[in-house]
């Protein structure tokens, strides 16, 4: 069964990345610390007024997750390059897309955990009340995280192998993520304020469409990007 073999490869690669991260914890801890610092800085920038903070909470949380997430994406390929592990990884038999899929899973877990911490800290700092529709908010955060991770991991596969990886990844990634950020920020803002205009559903549909398009596109394009 070819697809079962592929699935096993995806699982093994995801497990490898998660284990590396679990044993060192250095990457995760610093990324979360950065995200929390950015949240605090947004707090300073937006002023002490409670209503202004509440209005900006959704945007601040997503941007903090985005800025910190960029570091995580670059890392996931950089560790392979530093130890010269990328060539053996490519030489193993089987489809190449499984490498990306495995890394996507590991990064999704990574960013998901980070987002959970960001939301807890953000809700506290920006004095937001947890809405009754919190399950939809959870779903929206999950869809937004998938959007960030898919393109972030894909572009990191290229940028981590160039000279200016720290600058290049945000430069490539941020404009492409505008639809995700717009949908995620507007959707969570609507849900946090009780969704009076019933607009959250439309934003969630946009996120689902974006995620499907880019998961398919990156899995198809990955083979051409990684072999070059």
């Amino acid at each position, binding site marked *: 069964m070819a697809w079962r073999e592929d699935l096993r490869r995806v699982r093994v690669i995801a497990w490898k990345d998660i284990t590396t991260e679990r044993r060192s914890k250095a990457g995760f801890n610093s990324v979360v610390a950065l995200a929390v610092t950015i949240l605090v800085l947004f707090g300073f920038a937006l002023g002490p007024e409670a209503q202004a903070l509440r209005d900006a909470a959704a945007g601040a949380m997503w941007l903090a997750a985005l800025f910190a997430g960029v570091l995580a994406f670059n890392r996931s390929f950089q560790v392979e390059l530093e130890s010269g592990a990328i060539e053996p990884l490519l030489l193993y038999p089987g489809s190449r897309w499984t490498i990306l899929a495995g890394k996507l899973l590991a990064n999704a877990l990574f960013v998901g955990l980070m987002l959970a911490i960001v939301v807890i800290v953000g809700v506290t700092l920006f004095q937001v009340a947890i809405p009754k529709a919190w399950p939809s908010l959870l779903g929206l955060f999950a869809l937004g995280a998938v959007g960030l991770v898919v393109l972030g991991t894909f572009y990191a596969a290229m940028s981590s192998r*160039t000279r200016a990886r720290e*600058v290049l990844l945000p430069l490539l990634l941020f404009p*492409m993520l505008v639809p995700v950020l717009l949908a995620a920020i507007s959707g969570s803002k609507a849900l946090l304020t009780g969704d009076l205009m019933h607009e959250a559903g439309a934003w969630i549909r946009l996120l689902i469409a974006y995620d499907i398009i880019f998961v398919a596109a990156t899995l198809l394009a990955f083979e*051409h990007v990684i072999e*070059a």
Partner: protein
Amino acid sequence: MNETAATMNVPRSRAWSLFGVFAFVALIAAQAYAVLTWWVWEARLTSTLVLFMIFVGYLALRSFVDDPQQRAQWSAAVGAFGAINVPIVYMSVRWWRTIHQIQSSPSTMDSAYVLGLRTNAIAFLLIMIYFIRRRYELARLRRATELIADAAALGGM
């Protein structure tokens, strides 16, 4: 990959940098003409700005990758992904109702303007094609001289 393929790929994608110039001119012209302020968060203008920023990222990627084969393949991927935003720019005037009018067509405008619109649209398309063609030839020649210089330095030819 052999050298001919590399010579073909590199100049072709480099010629697309002209697209960025056109997008920038469109941005400046559109807002100077219609908006009459320095900036307004209007759907068509904002989505064009995002497209322009995607293009800036594309050019940055090109300048940071040295291997021609790698550069060609990566630019192709980034270019294809970036092109997904073109329909968003096109549809932006229908999806978000801001001050820009919906796409102009003979049914939405006075017949006196139809000929002018068509002439200008075709003329700009032709100028673009001409510029890309010339830029492509120039890049090919440059690449050929590089290859000759490399070969001469290695004592070949």
